[in-house]
C-alpha cells in the first residue's frame, strides 16, 4: 500500500513512494539517508528523534510520514546554513553541552523549537520545554546554559 508522498526536508522537495504509516524517522533515515535524527525509544519518550515541522518540535519516531506530507521539515542536517552553524549549535560547542552526542541532534532541534516560540526563555521554561529529551550522560545543566547562551546570541544578532 505504498503511496507517493511529497516531503519538504531542509528546503528540498522529495517525492517518495512509501507506506504512509511508516514513521517519519524511518523515512528520513532510510530513504533520505538523513541519519542525524536518532532512534532512542520508539515511543516519543526520549526526544532523540526530534525534528522541526513548520518550526515546531515533533517526535519523528511516532509520526506517520503521511501526516507531514507537504509541510516544511527541518532535521539536524538542515540547521546550519551554508556551513554556518546555528547559534544553538555554536553554543553547544562553546559550553561543551555533550558527551557521547547521541542525544545532541534531538536536544538541538527541541532547543531551536523552544527559541522559535520563546526567544528569551527563563530557566524554568527551558526545563519544562526540554523535559521530554533524555541525555543519559547527564549534561542537562550544560544544555540549559547553551540554550541561554544561544538566546543571548540571537538577541544580539537581532539588534
Amino acid at each position, binding site marked *: 500500500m505504498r503511496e507517493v508522498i511529497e516531503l519538504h526536508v531542509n528546503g528540498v522537495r522529495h517525492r517518495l513512494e512509501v507506506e504512509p504509516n511508516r514513521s517519519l524517522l524511518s523515512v528520513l533515515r532510510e530513504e533520505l539517508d538523513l541519519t542525524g535524527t536518532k532512534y532512542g525509544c520508539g515511543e516519543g*519518550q526520549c526526544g532523540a528523534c526530534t525534528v522541526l515541522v513548520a518550526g515546531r518540535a515533533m517526535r519523528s519516531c511516532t509520526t506517520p510520514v503521511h501526516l507531514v506530507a507537504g509541510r516544511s521539515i527541518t532535521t539536524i542536517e538542515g540547521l546550519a546554513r551554508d556551513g554556518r552553524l546555528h547559534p544553538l549549535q555554536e553554543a553547544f560547542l562553546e559550553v561543551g553541552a555533550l558527551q557521547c552526542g547521541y542525544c545532541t541532534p534531538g536536544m538541538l532541534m527541541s532547543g531551536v523549537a523552544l527559541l522559535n516560540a520563546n526567544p528569551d526563555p527563563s530557566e524554568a521554561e527551558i526545563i519544562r520545554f526540554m523535559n521530554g529529551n533524555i541525555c543519559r550522560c547527564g549534561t542537562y545543566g550544560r544544555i540549559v546554559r547553551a540554550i541561554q547562551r544561544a538566546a543571548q546570541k540571537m538577541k544580539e544578532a537581532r539588534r
Partner: protein
Amino acid sequence: MRDDLWHDFSTLSMEPAAYELFATSVPEGASDSTGKLPLSLTRRQFCQALGAGVLVLLLRDVRAVQESGGGRRAEAPSMPREIGAWLHIADDGRVTVYTGKVEVGQNIRTSLTQVVAEELRVPMERIHLVMGDTDLTPFDMGTFGSRTTPVMAAHLRRVAAATRELLLDLAAEQWQVARATLQIEAGVVRHAATGRSLDIGRLVRGQRLTRAIPQEVPLTPPQQWRIMGTSVPKVNGRAFVTGEHRYTSDLKLPGMLYGKVLRPPAFGARLVSVDTRDAEAMPGVLVVREGDFVGVAAPSPEHAARALAAIRAEWKRTPQPSSREIFAYLKAHEVEAQGWEGRSRYVVGSISEGLQIAERRFEQTYTVAYIAHAPLEPRAAVAEWKDGRLTVWTGTQRPFGVRSELARAFGVPEDHVRVIVPDTGSGYGGKHTGEAALEAARLAKAAGRPVKVVWTREEEFTWAYFRPAGVIEVRSGVKTDGTITAWEFHNYNSGAAAIRTPYAIPNQWIEFHPTRSPLRQGSYRALAATANHFARETAMDELAHLVGMDPLEFRLKNLKDERLRAVLEAAAHRFGWGRTKAAPDRGVGLAAGFEKGGYVATCAEIAVDRATGEVKVLRVVTAFECGAILNPDHLTNQIEGAIVMGLGGALFEAIEFENGKILNPRFSRYRVPRFSDLPQIDIVLLDRRDLPSAGAGETPIVGIAPAIGNAIFHATGVRLRSLPLVPNGLKGEARLHRGE
C-alpha cells in the same frame, strides 16, 4: 526455586559482560615484556599501508601487558602484543595516533589528543586518533575501569615525547647543528641562531623510518604544560552538533539488509517449535534458524519487523524469581565464585574484641536493585563477510574481546575478523559484549550480504545485562567519643569494588559473597563501588547519629587518608556544611570515598514535599581529586554527568521483573533522570599536579546516593536503606519503613 535452573544464568552472567571484573583480577607480574619487536608480516604490511613517514612504536611494559590481559587466553592477534602504541607522521605533517581504546562520550579522543599535542609540540588540529579498530590499533583489553587516563594517556605521552626527540635528531642531522639548539613549536622545528625552520611533515618527507622507543623518555613537566591541563573542546565536536557523525546505527553498506532476532518471551525459555513459513513467503525476506537462534534479514527495518512478527514460535518456560523476592534469593544462593570474581575476605584484628570495647553497637542491612545502563544508542552492529573474512562495525567497549567472540562463534582465526568501533552513543560499562555483532554476523553470513542489527529500546532493556543487585550487611561498634572500634561488612552479589573501608578501624571483617543472579549482570559505571559506598556511608551517618556527632566531624575523626580528608573538607567548605540554616522538610547529607585513584566527597541538600512525598535534590557539591587534571572542563562534565546519572539509581531507577520477564523495559516505565531532576551542581576540582593522573569517569558517581539518603534522614528522620531510595515518593517508603 530449583537450583539447576540457575546454572545457565550464572554461566551467562559471568561471561563477557563482566570482563572488567575479570581484567582487574589479572595477577601482578603476569605475562611477558620481552622488549623484542617481532616483525610480523602483518606489521610489515601495516607499515606499507601507512606510506612514507615516521612510525614510532612503543614497547609494552609489564603493567601494560597486565592491562591487556596478556596471556590470559591464547589468541592470534594480527599485531604483535609487545607493541603498546604507535604513532605515525605522514610527509604532509599529519599525525595519526593508533589506540585500541574507544570513545563513548568520556571524551578521551580529546584528552589523548591533548597529551600527544603537548609532547609532540604539534597543534591539536593536525592530530587524528584511530581508535578501536582491531586491524589498525594495538591490542587493548577494553575501555573500562577508568584506565585510559592512567595507562593509555601515559603510553601516548611517552610515544609522542620519543617522537619529538626523534624529530630533533633528524633535524640536527639534516642541518648539521647541535641538537640542543633546536626546538619544536606548533609542528615546526626551529633553529633560533640561524632562523631556520621546517615543518615536521617536510622534515620526515622521503624518510621511511620505523623506530621502537625506549621506556625512558623526557616528559614535559606539569609546570610547563600548555595543552595538557587546559579545557580543550571536544576535538570532533562539530560532527556531533551537525549530525554528520555516523554512529554504528547510522552506517549503511551497499546491498545491506536489516536484521531482527526472535526473542524468547522470558528468561530461561527454550524454543520448542517454530513456524517461519509466512515470514519466508515475504518477498526479499531471509529467515535464519540455527538452534534456538531465529532471525530474519530484510530490505528495510519495517520489512524485517513484519517478517519477525509473522514467525510463530512455541516456547517452554521455566519458573523464574521476581524482583519482589530478589534479596532473599541472593542471600540464599551463595556460590564460590561468579566466574570473574571469587569470594574475597579482608580481616584485621578481631570483630568480637572490637565490639566488646565498643560503647554503642550497630547492625543494619542495605540493598541495591538491579538497574539498567540504558545507553541512548542501543546495541547496534553492521556485519559484512568477504572471502571468508568478517568485518563488523559495532558500538562496544571491548573491540578485541568482541573480535574473539566472533572468531569463536564462527570458527575463523582472529585475524580474519575485524571489529571497528565508531565513536559510540555511550556505554557506562554496559557495552562490553558483542550480542548485536554476533547476530548481524550470523545473518550476514547466511544472507551473503551485509546486515545491520539495531536493538530496540525494549531489547536493550531486556537482553543486555544489568548492574547487579546486592545485599549488604554491616555490623559495627563505636565509642561515645566517635572512635569506631569494629567494622564488619558483607556484600552479597553486587561486587567487591571499593568494599574496603577508607576509615582507620582496628578491627575489620570485610567479605564479598558471590551469589547466583537470576538476571544477567555485569559492569556498570564504578561497579559495586556505588553499592558499597551507599551502605558504608549510610552506616557512617547512622553511627554518627548514634553517638550524637556531626557526620562530617565523625568521619574526619576516623579518617587518616590525607587525600580523602582534603576532598571531604573542600566539599564541606564549598557547601557551607554546618552553616546551612535549618528549614522545615529540608535536609543535608554528605558522603565520601575513593576508588580507581579518584577521591570524592559529595554534599547534597534535599527538600521533601510532605503532601506528594516527592523528594527533590536541590543542591549538590562534589569535590574531586584524581591527581593532575588533563582537561578541567571535560573532567567537570564527567563529574556532573556522574552526579546526574547517580541521581537515577539513588532515587528511582530499578529493574522490575517477574517470572523471567522485565516489567519496565521502556523509558515510559523506567524512569531516568531528566531536566526537571537537575539540582544546582557545584564542582570543586583539586588539581594535584604532583601526582599522576587517574581516570575520572566512574568514581564521582559513588557519593551521590548516600549523600541524598543521609539528607532525607536529616530532613525527615526516615532512614532509607534501599536503592532506589524513593521510587514511589517518600510517603510510601516512610510507611514501609515504619512497618519494619
